[in-house]
């Protein structure tokens, strides 16, 4: 698989990570990411949904339609074993990337 570009890759990794704690619907995933990044990362719907459909097509995610606590019909996503493997490799790539650019752009942070 060709290396996805950094932005896509990071979004995918965030979504997959969100789902490692259990199935969520799209809105739930957005909320999880916002909370975990203290509202710094605000993923747009226009990016999230195509990513979800793409990852579902590629078999990283599995989707089921179910009912929310409030009794509303919603599509829930769950991570598949294939998705987990991708998350692991994406995380490694991100690590390599950050440890490469950090000394250049963020010497102070890197020195920490």
């Amino acid at each position, binding site marked *: 698989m060709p290396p996805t570009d950094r932005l896509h890759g990071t979004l995918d990794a965030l979504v997959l990570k969100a789902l490692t704690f259990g199935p969520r619907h799209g809105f739930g995933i957005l909320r999880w990411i916002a909370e975990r990044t203290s509202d710094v990362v605000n993923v747009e*719907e226009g990016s999230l949904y195509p990513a*979800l459909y793409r990852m579902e097509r590629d078999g990283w995610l599995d989707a089921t339609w*179910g009912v929310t606590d409030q009794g509303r*019909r919603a599509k829930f996503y769950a991570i598949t074993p294939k998705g987990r493997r991708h998350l692991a490799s994406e995380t490694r790539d991100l690590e390599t990337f950050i440890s490469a650019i950090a000394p250049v752009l963020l010497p102070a942070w890197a020195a920490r």
Partner: protein
Amino acid sequence: MNTPPRRSRSLFKPRRVEDEVGAEFAFHVDMVIQTLVADGMTPEAARAEAVRRFGDMVVVSAECQRFGRQRDRTRSRAEYLEELRQDVAFALRQLGRARGFAATATATLALGIGATVAVFSALYAVALRPLPFTEPDRVVQLLATRRGETEQIFSSGEFAAIRDRRDAFASVAAITGGGFTLTGMGVPELVGGALVTADYFRVLGVSPLLGRGFLPSDDVEGAPRVILMTHELWTNRFASDTSVIGRTIRLDDEPSTVIGVLPAAFDGVGTEDALWAPLRLTTAQLTSNSGRWLRLVARLAPAVTREHGADAAGKAMQELAARTPGASRTVSAVVRSYLDGIAGKPRERLLVLFGAVMLVLLIACVNVANLLLARGTERARELAIRAALGAGRGRLVRQLLVETLVLSLGAAAVGLAIAFALMKGLIVLAPENTPRLDQARVNGIVLLFSLGLAVASSIMVGLVPALRGARTSLQSTLREGGRGTAGSGQRDRVRATLVAAEVALAMTLLIGAGLLIRTAWHLQRVDPGFHADHVITARVLLPAARYRDTAQITRTYTQIREAASQVPGVRRVGLVSLVPLTGGVLGTRITPEGKQLDADEQIAIDIRYASPDFFAAMGMALLDGRDFVREDDATAVSVAVISASLAGKLWPGERAIGKRIDAMAVESGKPNWMTVVGVVPDVRSEALNAPVAPTLYMPYTQTPAGMWNATGRSLVLVARTSPEPEAVVRSLQQAVATVDPLLPLVDVSTMERLLAESTAGTRFNMLLLVTLGALALVLASIGVYGVVAYYVSQRTREIGVHMALGATPRDIWRLVLGRGLRPILWGLVVGVGLSLGAGRVLRGQLYGVSTQDPATLAAVVGVLLGVAVVATFVPAMRAIRVTPARALAAE
């Protein structure tokens, strides 16, 4: 067995992708609104804000739908494959459980597929496989039509004229065949070969593997002779030695330099030629329009059709004829593909065979379909239960079709093994001169064909039973106690139809076989015009380099005849230019004395040169007049012996002896008067089933010099022997060697063998068609037996009740026999129609029998009826033994 799909489809999922995306987005927007309202916004403002945040919903939705559709496609493919895997596994289990059925069905189909594949691979090798030429479609053979008769030969002037039509032909080459005597390498040996013009290999588009091809400078009068040879000859005679290039060998006693070796692929193009030398036409020859002796091949110019090529060649011939005094202008050319030229006749034979094996395969399919129908009845209960458990009709049909596909793929694998063995037999049995047959292989195309056959037969075999099986309703099946008689009336009808089809197909095949048997029988009774027993023939060629002078040639042949007549066991011996049945024609046109005929009205005849005693040796009884005698030499008056048909044509109702004929001399164009001294029976020059050609025999001692060149200075020694003819071959060889030790004896054969070879093609097709017909008969009778037996077994109770109510065994006979015979009669009616059509296909191969021969028809109907009655009889016997008590016990 019927596991639900792994991915459970939740009940809430919208069916269409656009609805799915729409519902998901709507939910998302609602959730955002809820959050915003909870943070204190008004619902209206919250909605506006949520929609604003989402961005361009149309674009995002389109992208999601695209991914969603891709996902669905992948998923349905995966599901399909998974179901297929299950079906295959299930089919294998089912077939494993019904071993007898599986073995019978596989064997039947394998026979059909094997026979079809074997014939297909022969057909492909001989007639379909492209020749190893560049752009083989553009390589054509030219034929000349003169006064409605088509022949292969042209004059050298016509060759030059056609060659100049650059608008139609990229290149044209002339060939004259025969062979070369290879000397200086042990025993003198005749090697097949031809003299060709320099463009020959350019026409075919073949370049030498080693050395060079012919150059225009090799092909002029007086140029030293150079030769090209096949890869095969190079391997066998020159041990693949590359230093052969440049070596000088002696061909016909003329030193010839080897300049090239052709690639191995060129070995198998269906001719027996192994050596080629330039024709070296002289300038005089290139402008001469008298004497036709060259075969022409050409490469069409790009984008030129065969019709256009024929037009152009015909025009060139007509223009030349207009400039030649006395030449007939009613000439035209025919252009046919080179492949048609070498494989036309065998292709026709193989196509007939192919049709026949396809019929056998169809019968095999029908038989297996019948077996499946019977099985379908037994399985009706299982299918009904599966349907009740939720398997859709499509799924059930597919399941049953997969079962037959597995079956026919297995049969195809066995069939390939059968085909492999059959192909070897086919190569041995086929007429010896079938071109390219020896290269028949199981190759990719043949494998692909077998695969196609397997799929096609599985559909033919499985579709009707599958549709029927899947229609079975749960209720009726279970209600009838699972005895599987659901819709049995209908099922009987289908089975009866299948039997009728089977009988019709078998009948078609048997009619074909019958017509060929009758043809062979007629051929056996054709009067060949000679007595074939105890006659040996062998050709003697006098090499041009040492035998140039006509007097020397005739003197040598006289010595050879004298030497041969001294051989113990030889009773009569003669010489002739062409033996009957070996083909080859030397023709001319003649005028009887007292008539003025222009070029178009002259009578076309075959011309032969013969010695005294030839007619006696061949066993051709003189009908009138006398044989040639020693005194009919070059200094005496020219004489001729003519065939009965020629005498009848020239002087109907009159005695021919003493009358005179003018046969135009080939080279001079001056009159050449001959006096008829004898009349002999007609013989056939091509084959027994070919029409007789009016023939004129001249004494070899009066043969003009030009004719010796046209015949390659060769005559055939014909000896009638007291012992078996093969016994004298060695002594004959030694006798010829006393005259000239360098002369080879070639084409040694007996007239009996030539007779057999002449009908080899017919006998080959007859043998195979009879074999296939017998196979069809066996399959069809199994089919009939199966249907009747099944009927009886299903109706045991009904018959028992009939008996209990007072039916006599006779009534039961009538009931059961009627059941069996009705479809057979239908099949015979349809079969008559089919065989009339099939007979038309055979027409070209029949002799002395019409395609609608009533005797054949009657015989075949008789055989089929007889077999059908026997096949019905056995189960009927069982039926009359049914007693009411047994019928009830069967419940």
